[in-house]
């Protein structure tokens, strides 16, 4: 055995190189296919590895859990799965259960898109940071470059910021003791910087540029003093369990625990609630929880990507096998000679395998810099932030090595075992060993069919995802999204200027209408209220989500009024404790109210001893106010004065946006000189909601394209290869019966056969994709 290994290394690599060099066309096609395939595959592997790496770096990652809640509200059919829970729950668990070692909460100010950060005279906007309990960093670990993670948040009004933010605000990495004014969603407060962190330890589902201590008044104080065990499910809660704790056993104790503390409250709200423990390490790969911190990537999607990667590499391997067998007459002679001089079969297998391993190793060496080179482009495409760092990453090296060996073995196995089985006599005398080998012919045809099927399935999948997405982006949402400009008012003080700004821009000739509102379509709607109609009670109430707006809302967004009237400025009156609302058709359907009877009706909601009354002034058509993929849920808008609202949307009828923005900026500067002017387009904001679907579409399209790149040279050269094989058959066969034309013809016929077979195989796969997408968006068409 060792002697054969010796031969393999001494001779085979040399021969493999000479073979490659001598057959440049063949080698180029093979290398091209293998390199593009490997590059795609490598990027997918890195992408999946990146997504699976989230929250694996905490030293006790296996003992860390997030508390999540399942809620069932009265008369709301769908159970809600929330990523959050009520504020006192984690602390209660810590005091009730000895197996809970640490508990900490985190919360972002609700409904705030951007926080205002003020350093001296300078103002910055940043995604809102989290209020966290002071022991937070003892559960989730971050690399601190300054400050002490154990005590950084002990003092009231202390804040820990990221290295990036520190550079942005202070141009230094050591801003300890400096002061930042933080506002947005409440009054501006002064915070003292007590720590700086970076994410060099690894990525986390909880990504934030700054963390403020919970002990800082405002919402933090609300959480700290809150005693609601049923409602107020808006807090992210983390637990560190003692080593060796069985999470399932702890979870089994939670129903009793919840009853012990919150039975009365649950009864009052008519709510069913259960608590669960979610392993931290799985958060990033578990999408679908309501109010989660980030857009997560499902494990299934990652598995699907791995499958695609496998397909791509498989296609490259099949190409390799086919190309090798296409010139097997030539190789068969070599096999014959070697066997005649005494080569055992195993050394021939070794020779062919080392040839394919060499080729895959070369293509891997070309694929790595290729991926590195294309990385910014690929990351842009997939929305990921992956870096190639094989030197740092042993797993990555192992991955690459495994990929080389696996691809080389798979790609080389067929030629190796097929060619090495040739009988020397047959090939040396020219009666080609290819003939009469029905099994090999079938295998080869089967390979081409499966290759074609895989390719077609990828293309069909990519097309379906693309068309579904197109449909989602183009479908009627119930309101008009084109030509709408959004102006956000980020700070509480700036709200005072909303009315003036709205009125000023309405005077512009380009503006048809402008409306102030608390939440723009597509943004998260946090508020809901269980409502019942006159003559009934809370038991028959329907949860209705709502937001606040001014009197121009329907006109600006072109939402159809079905009955009653629009708001007027007089609707501000809250006498007799009633607010004025325009409800959606779905509200009437849920409560069983006929359209004609709705205007003027008073809907009620009871909470503890209070009764809230809402007067319906109008009925509007259903529209997708929040999640564009979800159904038309019951919704209403309640009148509010512009000065308490955070956004203005203008319906603009011009193509000359530069001059429009010049005018609006001047208006902004006149009413709000201290804040930077900012705007966005509603349709672009809505498209953002689909970024993950768009990513999916782009990823699948890109990799499908990548997997087909090697068809290009192959489709240009196979004739050449077939011609050559036929030529060699003639050269070595004593009776030159076949000619080039006839030698090629069966392949053309075979191609049609295999195409047909491939198409019939790929349709079920395509339909599967379609079902998946349709289910995701609850569509039927």
């Amino acid at each position: 055995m060792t002697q054969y290994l010796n031969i393999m290394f001494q001779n085979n690599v040399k021969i493999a190189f000479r073979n490659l060099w001598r057959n440049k066309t063949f080698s180029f096609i093979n290398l091209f296919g293998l390199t593009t395939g490997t590059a795609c595959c490598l990027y997918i592997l890195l992408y999946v590895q990146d997504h699976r790496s989230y929250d694996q770096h905490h030293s006790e990652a296996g003992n860390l859990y997030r508390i999540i809640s399942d809620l069932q509200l009265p008369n709301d059919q769908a159970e809600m799965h929330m990523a959050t829970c009520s504020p006192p729950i984690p602390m209660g668990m810590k005091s009730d259960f000895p197996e809970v070692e640490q508990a900490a909460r985190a919360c972002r100010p609700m409904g705030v898109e951007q926080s205002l950060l003020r350093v001296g005279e300078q103002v910055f906007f940043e995604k809102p940071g989290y209020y966290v309990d002071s022991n937070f960093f003892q559960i989730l670990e971050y690399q601190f470059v300054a400050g002490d993670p154990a005590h950084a948040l002990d003092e009231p009004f202390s804040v820990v910021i990221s290295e990036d933010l520190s550079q942005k605000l202070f141009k230094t990495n050591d801003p300890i003791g400096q002061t930042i004014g933080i506002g947005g969603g409440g009054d501006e407060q002064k915070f003292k910087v007590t720590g700086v962190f970076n994410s060099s330890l690894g990525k986390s589902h909880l990504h934030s540029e700054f963390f403020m201590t919970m002990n800082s008044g405002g919402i933090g104080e609300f959480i700290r003093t809150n005693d609601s065990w049923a409602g107020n499910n808006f807090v992210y809660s983390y637990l560190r369990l003692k080593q060796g704790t069985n999470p399932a056993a702890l979870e089994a104790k939670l129903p009793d625990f919840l009853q012990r503390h919150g039975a009365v409250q649950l009864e009052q709200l008519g709510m069913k609630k259960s608590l669960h423990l979610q392993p931290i390490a799985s958060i990033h790969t578990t999408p679908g929880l309501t109010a989660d911190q980030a857009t997560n990537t499902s494990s299934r999607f990652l598995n699907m990507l791995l499958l695609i990667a496998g397909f791509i590499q498989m296609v490259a391997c099949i190409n390799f096998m086919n190309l090798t067998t296409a010139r097997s007459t030539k190789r068969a002679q070599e096999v014959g000679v070697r066997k005649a001089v005494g080569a055992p079969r195993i050394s021939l297998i070794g020779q062919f395998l080392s040839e394919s391993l060499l080729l895959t190793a070369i293509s891997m060496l070309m694929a790595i810099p290729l991926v590195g080179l294309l990385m910014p482009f690929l990351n842009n495409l997939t929305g990921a932030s992956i870096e190639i760092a094989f030197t740092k990453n042993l797993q990555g090296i192992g991955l690459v090595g495994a990929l080389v060996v696996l691809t080389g073995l798979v790609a080389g196995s067929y030629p190796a075992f097929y060619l090495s089985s040739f009988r020397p006599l047959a090939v040396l005398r020219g009666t080609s060993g290819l003939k009469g080998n029905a099994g090999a012919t079938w295998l080869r045809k089967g390979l081409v069919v499966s290759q074609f099927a895989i390719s077609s399935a990828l293309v069909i999948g990519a097309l379906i995802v693309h068309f579904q997405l197109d449909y989602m982006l183009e479908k009627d949402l119930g309101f008009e999204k084109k030509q709408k400009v959004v102006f956000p008012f980020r700070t509480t003080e700036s709200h005072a200027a909303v009315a003036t700004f709205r009125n000023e821009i309405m005077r512009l000739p380009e503006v048809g209408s402008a409306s102030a509102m608390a939440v723009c379509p597509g943004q998260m709607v946090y508020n809901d209220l269980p409502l019942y109609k006159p003559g009934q009670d809370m038991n028959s109430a329907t949860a209705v989500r709502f937001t606040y707006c001014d009197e121009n809302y329907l006109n600006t967004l072109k939402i159809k009024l079905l009955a009653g009237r629009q708001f007027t400025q007089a609707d501000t009156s809250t006498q007799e404790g009633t607010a004025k609302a325009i409800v959606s058709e779905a509200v009437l359907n849920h409560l069983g109210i006929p359209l004609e009877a709705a205007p003027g009706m008073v809907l009620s909601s009871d909470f503890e001893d209070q009764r809230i009354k809402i007067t319906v002034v109008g009925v509007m058509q259903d529209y997708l106010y929040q999640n564009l993929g979800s159904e038309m849920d019951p919704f209403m808008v309640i009148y509010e004065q512009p000065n308490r609202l955070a956004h203005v949307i203008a319906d603009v009828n011009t193509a000359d946006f530069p001059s429009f923005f010049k005018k609006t900026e001047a208006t902004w500067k006149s009413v709000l000189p201290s804040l930077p002017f900012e705007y966005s387009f509603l349709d672009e904001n809505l498209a953002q909601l689909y970024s993950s679907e768009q990513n999916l579409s782009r990823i699948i399209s890109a990799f499908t394209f990548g997997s087909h790149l090697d068809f290009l040279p192959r489709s240009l050269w196979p004739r050449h290869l077939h011609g050559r094989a036929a030529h060699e058959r003639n050269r070595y066969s004593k009776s030159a019966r076949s000619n080039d034309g006839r030698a090629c013809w069966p392949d053309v016929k075979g191609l049609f056969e295999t195409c047909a077979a491939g198409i019939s195989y790929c349709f079920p796969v395509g339909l599967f994709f379609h079902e998946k997408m349709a289910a995701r968006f609850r569509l039927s068409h």
Partner: protein
Amino acid sequence: MITLKNIERFYNTGLNKSWVLKNISFNLKKGEFLTIMGPSGSGKSTLLNIIGMLDKPDTGEYYFLDEPVHTFSEKRRTELHKHTIGFVFQAYHLIDELTVYENIEMPLLYRGVGKSERQSMVADLLDRFNIVGKKGLFPAQLSGGQQQLVGIARAIVGKPKLLLADEPTGNLHTSQGEMIMGLLKELHGEGMTIIQVTHNEKFAAYGTRVMQIEDGFVRMDTTT
């Protein structure tokens, strides 16, 4: 050295058997130079392949150095063949991707001969055949006669007990053919047992024994 008893080789064509070789029996002593002659399709190459252990007889007994080869498994046959028989082909069958040196060295690799020993064995042959200057060339860079020279060198480098040559001069000009035959004669003179298949009457005369085969039968067997 070789004893064949009632060797037969046939194909089943429907109800009838089609005979390639029928009832072949003969002995070959060590040091003989046998030439097998006969028209195309007479079965002479099949006979050579059976003797060379690349093919198996359907019936009959084959003793090589008193070993019953007809009872051997394929693996054992390959092992025996590897160590005792050298092949020379009409179409040379050198490996295009290997140099002259590497082509000659190849059988030694499969026998597991050590590196320094290999070097001296190959060097001796290159020297003897006067092709030292060509050792780095590839087969495509050589003339037909030179290629066959390398083919013979490859066949004898492992010091086989039997050298088989299937029309070694079939693709060569007369002068080159004479050079090759002269070489075979020289090897025979050194004690090598040789069997060659040829169409060429003149080259048949280089041997010590001529066997005529027709339709699978031995028609004539003369020792000079």
